[in-house]
């Protein structure tokens, strides 16, 4: 039996990735092998990567949103925001857990990366929660990781930008579609926090004196205005989401330097460098996916998958259920951007064929991939908080379990009630 070049290409990709070669480079290597075996021009790999990166204007939002989140975390915007949330929800049982979730919801309105949210907010709130042993470290880590997944679901959102690239959907409508599901997750997590806090008798925060509230609100005001500026800018038609990303970064820069005076030149350099690093890691993955997806396209794989799925005569809902099951399983093993760039493009043609709305599909996929960041063994957020708290992974996983279940319940609701996603985009003029 002879194997087709494409089969060998996939085998090589999987083997190299398992051997520990970075995924972007594994995809480039496997694609070069394919070109060799199929007797195609070997320069195609370079051509696809260079032209692909050069022509993907929307992708510029990725480095800019990373930069914006980094700037917010290094200035003291995050600290001030947390103080403000303490005023709002600190006085309930399990108050700091609520503060964690609410801060993530507000922060989600300015940042598009769950990892950045977990590090930025977690760095401060985990310390607050575990001081004097008020909350178990495992619980503090678990709720921080869980609440961080709201970040890329409420706009802006880096994964949605990547999805828009592979699916040709409007970033603006995708962003709007994430608002209601993101709020649902936030409320769901607060319900879980309330139940656990009651059962374990977690503390209540001392009420903030009334006369301090105006000062705290004034301090947090510039941070609170950023989501408003972004939303009005993007949906008022003033700027594209990519330009919105640049505006957000500028706003965070100005707020940190002029208003809060908390950013030195040296810190700015470090922020730019770390954003560049993060951009490069994601960029290499995108570069690899650009060549690999070219191979997948010339092999007509999406069409084959479409025929294969058509054979089952699935209803749109059965298809979505199947997609959710596949992605949740893959999410345990693969990193989110990889799933978005390699697996999701194959699922888009069948989704289209079955009449699934692509904005709805995109939001479902992104929520699903965010849950993947929380599921072991390869949940990136788990590693981030484990690294921050020096807790064993298993302890965090056990504490995160109720939150993961809640996230899956929300995923089920938005899958079967498309209106939860599409209501807001439709209100703003989306026609599906």
């Amino acid at each position, binding site marked *: 039996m002879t194997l087709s070049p494409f089969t060998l290409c996939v085998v*090589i990709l999987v083997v*190299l*990735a*398992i051997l*520990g*070669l*970075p995924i*972007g*480079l594994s995809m480039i*290597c496997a694609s*070069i*092998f394919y*070109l*060799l075996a199929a007797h195609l*021009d*070997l*320069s195609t790999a*370079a*051509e696809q*990567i260079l032209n692909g*990166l*050069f022509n993907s*204007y929307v*992708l*510029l939002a990725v*480095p800019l949103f990373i*930069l914006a*989140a*980094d700037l917010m*975390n290094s200035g003291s915007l995050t600290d001030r925001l947390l103080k403000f949330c303490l005023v709002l929800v600190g006085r309930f049982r399990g108050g700091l857990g609520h503060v964690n979730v609410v801060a993530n919801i507000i922060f989600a309105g300015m940042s598009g*990366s769950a*990892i950045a949210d977990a*590090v930025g907010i977690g760095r401060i709130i985990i310390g607050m929660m575990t001081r004097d042993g008020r909350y178990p470290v495992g619980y503090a880590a678990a709720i921080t990781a869980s609440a961080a997944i709201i970040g890329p679901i409420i706009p802006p959102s880096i994964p949605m930008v990547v999805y828009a690239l592979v699916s040709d959907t409007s970033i603006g409508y995708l962003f709007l579609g994430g608002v209601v599901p993101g709020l649902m997750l936030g409320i769901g997590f607060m319900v879980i926090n309330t139940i656990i806090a009651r059962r374990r008798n977690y503390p209540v925060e001392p009420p903030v004196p009334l006369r301090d509230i105006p000062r705290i609100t004034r301090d947090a005001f510039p941070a609170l205005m950023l989501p408003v500026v972004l939303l009005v800018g993007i949906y008022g038609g*003033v700027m594209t989401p990519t330009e919105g990303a*640049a505006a957000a970064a*500028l706003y965070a820069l100005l707020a940190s330097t002029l208003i809060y005076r908390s950013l030195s030149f040296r*810190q700015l*350099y470090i922020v*730019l*460098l*770390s*954003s*560049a*690093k*993060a*951009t*490069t*890691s994601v*960029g*290499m*993955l*995108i*570069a690899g996916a650009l060549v690999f997806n070219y191979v997948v396209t010339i092999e007509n794989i999406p069409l084959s998958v479409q025929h294969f799925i058509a054979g089952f005569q699935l209803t749109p809902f059965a298809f979505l259920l199947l997609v959710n099951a596949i992605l949740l399983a893959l999410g345990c093993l*693969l990193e989110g951007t*990889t799933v978005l760039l390699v697996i999701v493009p194959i699922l888009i043609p069948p989704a289209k064929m079955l009449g699934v709305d692509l904005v709805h599909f995109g939001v479902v996929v992104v929520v699903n991939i965010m849950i993947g960041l929380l599921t072991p063994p*390869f949940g990136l957020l788990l*590693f*981030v908080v484990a*690294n*921050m708290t020096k807790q064993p992974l298993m302890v965090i996983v056990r504490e995160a379990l109720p939150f993961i279940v809640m996230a899956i319940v929300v995923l089920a609701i938005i899958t079967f009630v498309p209106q939860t996603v599409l209501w807001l985009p439709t209100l703003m003029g989306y026609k599906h």
Partner: protein
Amino acid sequence: MSSARRHSLGRWLKRRAENVIVVLIAIMFISFLLQIGFRYLLNRPLGWTDEVTVLCWVWVVLWGAAFILSDEDEIRFDIVYAQVPISARRAFTVISSVALVTLFAISLPATWGYVLFMKREKSAYLGMRFDFLYSIYLIFAVVVMIKHARLAWRALRGIAVPGTKVVEAADTP
């Protein structure tokens, strides 16, 4: 050259490579802001800013992959790699690195030809030659080959294998 001097030279070069990427990302950011400012505030759209931002993005990705990314920053699937003993990791590293160097080397002549061929084309606004703009890919390919040849060599000699750290909050300060 003594190994200490080689080491400090390496560090010095790495710093300069970091300077370059910081400048690139700063230029990208500033041209974006200029673009928005001129289009919406002054109502005079600039064409070249689009071009500069996209160029910086391509260079940030490939320059960073060549000179900045350390093993810990790379996104990889390391469930298996992290579980196996050091000797197996060495074997893993040798096999994957040799495969990478071989495949990149085979495709290098054609890639070289492609980049040179692009000298006929010039960018729309700034008129820069594309062979120059795309040369970063050649730099990237050669440096990645050298990096992996070195990795394989070190694994064979038993000096070191890449770590298994998955995330080191690399994208935040």
